[in-house]
């Protein structure tokens, strides 16, 4: 077999990885922006607790996070059981669970980047927009959000990369099921565990590097386009 010929397992892992990471980022972005806004702009009791909770996956061992997800959201878990009962959604041991694991693990990175950019938005501009007749929500979507774009791009790329590389929480929460939860890192790990898997592992390794590079280039291009737009 030719060196560059991907096996079915590898192709499955590649697409599953992109699929899972894409969903993870898509779901966590709006929530991340909301949480970043709440953390940056509001003052309320328990704010530190929320801040800590958001950042927990960053400091906990990923396996611990995965185990917590399993306990809470597994089919017999506290939330998982209710979820299954009322909406029929099962997260454990399928790709949706992998999305959740990736989203949770990458969430703090996203929130940090978005929050940083939100804090750099001049609130004087928002005040100016208010005096021009725009209500708070419109100000957010026409002034605040457009000015946060650089931070959102950074947050997206960090979260996407983190999701692609997610291993510990995923394997603990949804296991390593081919075609269901076996993302690129999991497939690579599996290949290193079997005889004659080195070539496949190497291919997946090269693939990972390529995807990461492409994502970086993409974000760089977007950031440049934004900067050019601002300079007019």
């Amino acid at each position, binding site marked *: 077999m030719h060196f560059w010929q991907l096996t079915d397992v590898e192709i499955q892992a590649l697409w599953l990885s992109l699929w899972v990471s894409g969903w993870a980022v898509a779901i966590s972005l709006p929530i991340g922006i909301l949480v970043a806004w709440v953390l940056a702009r509001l003052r309320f009791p328990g704010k530190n607790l929320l801040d800590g909770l958001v950042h927990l996956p960053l400091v906990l061992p990923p396996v611990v996070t995965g185990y917590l997800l399993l306990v809470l959201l597994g089919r017999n878990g506290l939330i998982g059981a209710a979820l299954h009962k009322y909406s029929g959604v099962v997260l454990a041991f399928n790709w949706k669970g992998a999305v959740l694991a990736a989203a949770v693990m990458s969430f703090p990175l996203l929130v940090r980047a978005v929050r940083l950019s939100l804090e750099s938005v001049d609130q004087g501009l928002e005040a100016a927009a*208010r*005096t*021009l007749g*725009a209500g708070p929500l419109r100000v957010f979507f026409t002034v605040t959000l457009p000015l946060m774009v650089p931070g959102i791009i950074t947050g997206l790329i960090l979260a996407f990369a983190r999701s692609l590389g997610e291993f510990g929480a995923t394997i603990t929460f949804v296991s390593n099921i081919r075609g269901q939860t076996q993302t690129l890192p999991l497939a690579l790990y599996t290949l290193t565990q079997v005889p004659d898997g080195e070539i496949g592992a190497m291919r997946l390794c090269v693939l990972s590097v390529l995807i990461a590079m492409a994502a970086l280039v993409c974000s760089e291009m977007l950031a440049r386009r934004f900067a050019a737009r601002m300079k007019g």
Partner: protein
Amino acid sequence: MEINVTHRQGDFCVDAAFGGSESGVTALFGPSGAGKTSLINMVAGLMRPDAGRISVNGLCLFDSSRRIDLPPEKRRIGYVFQDGRLLPHLSVRANLTYGMRRTPADHRFVAFDDVVELLGIGHLLNRRPAKLSGGEKQRVAIGRALLTSPALLLMDEPLASLDGSRKAEVLPFIMRLSREYAIPILYVSHIMDEILNLADRLVIMDRGHVAAFGDLDDLLSKAELQMHLGKEDYGSVISTVVDEPLDASGLTRLRFDEHLLKVPPMPAGRGAPIRVRISARNVAVALQAPSVTSFQNIFPGKVDQIIDQGESYVDLRLNIGCFLWARITRQSFLDLNLKTGQPVFALIKSVAVSSGAVNDVVNERKTQRI
């Protein structure tokens, strides 16, 4: 317009009340930290007063006793900020129309093309704010606020961030605003020159309180207010009309009371009202009418009041039909042995002509020795 608010922040307390007519320019004057910006932020709705009442053009914007507090976007108040605050991600055109598009069509009385022409920003429409000079930015900011067809226009030191020549570029546009559109303007500044050019009425603020408010000309001649105007701005403001635009000696002749005042030629029609400001330092005093002199403007009068604050100079209020301030050195004061009520001659060295009433606004603000 009725403004009556109190607001406490830490040790600083704004407690200000003044009323005014619904047209013309009202200047809010005072040193930095007098609470001018806080006050207009409360009018705009960007800051919430602890108590009080704000109403503009018959519309109540804030009333603590009736629990009325309109959000800024509902107040129909245009705000020109000191730092412009153009939206950097939008083109000049989009900045200009941002507020206009949010004004209901039946409320609009300011047309886009008119404003663009008035402010001379037609060639900038497709640029981004980052590519504009300071003066251009402020002109766009003024246009943006104007295009919301506001019931009141707030201007917070719109010239403060500009250097001298840029100031001269923007000032004429502001002067034309109050004449072209019947929008009352509340203009914040700590520069008396700007205020003399623009304002009809004056609110003097000091440490959060209104020290005085009223007609500009009346206020500026009051002795007790001179301390608020700062050492540099010490002087008299006299309202005149053009008697002869160009007399035989090549000067413009202005008339006030029974006097004629000669100033450098200026483009103004006969009968046009001109406001002149005569700095106290530019008024000399003589006991006899000098027979041979380079002074063009000599007025007989008498010493009305002597203000001696123990410094190297002495301030005199002369009555020449109206009041005229003179600042002379202590030595001259002693040499002349001046007393209250003593007849003297006032010699005016130079006149700063500054007024919103001159037709060719660009040529204003000339101070020349004559």
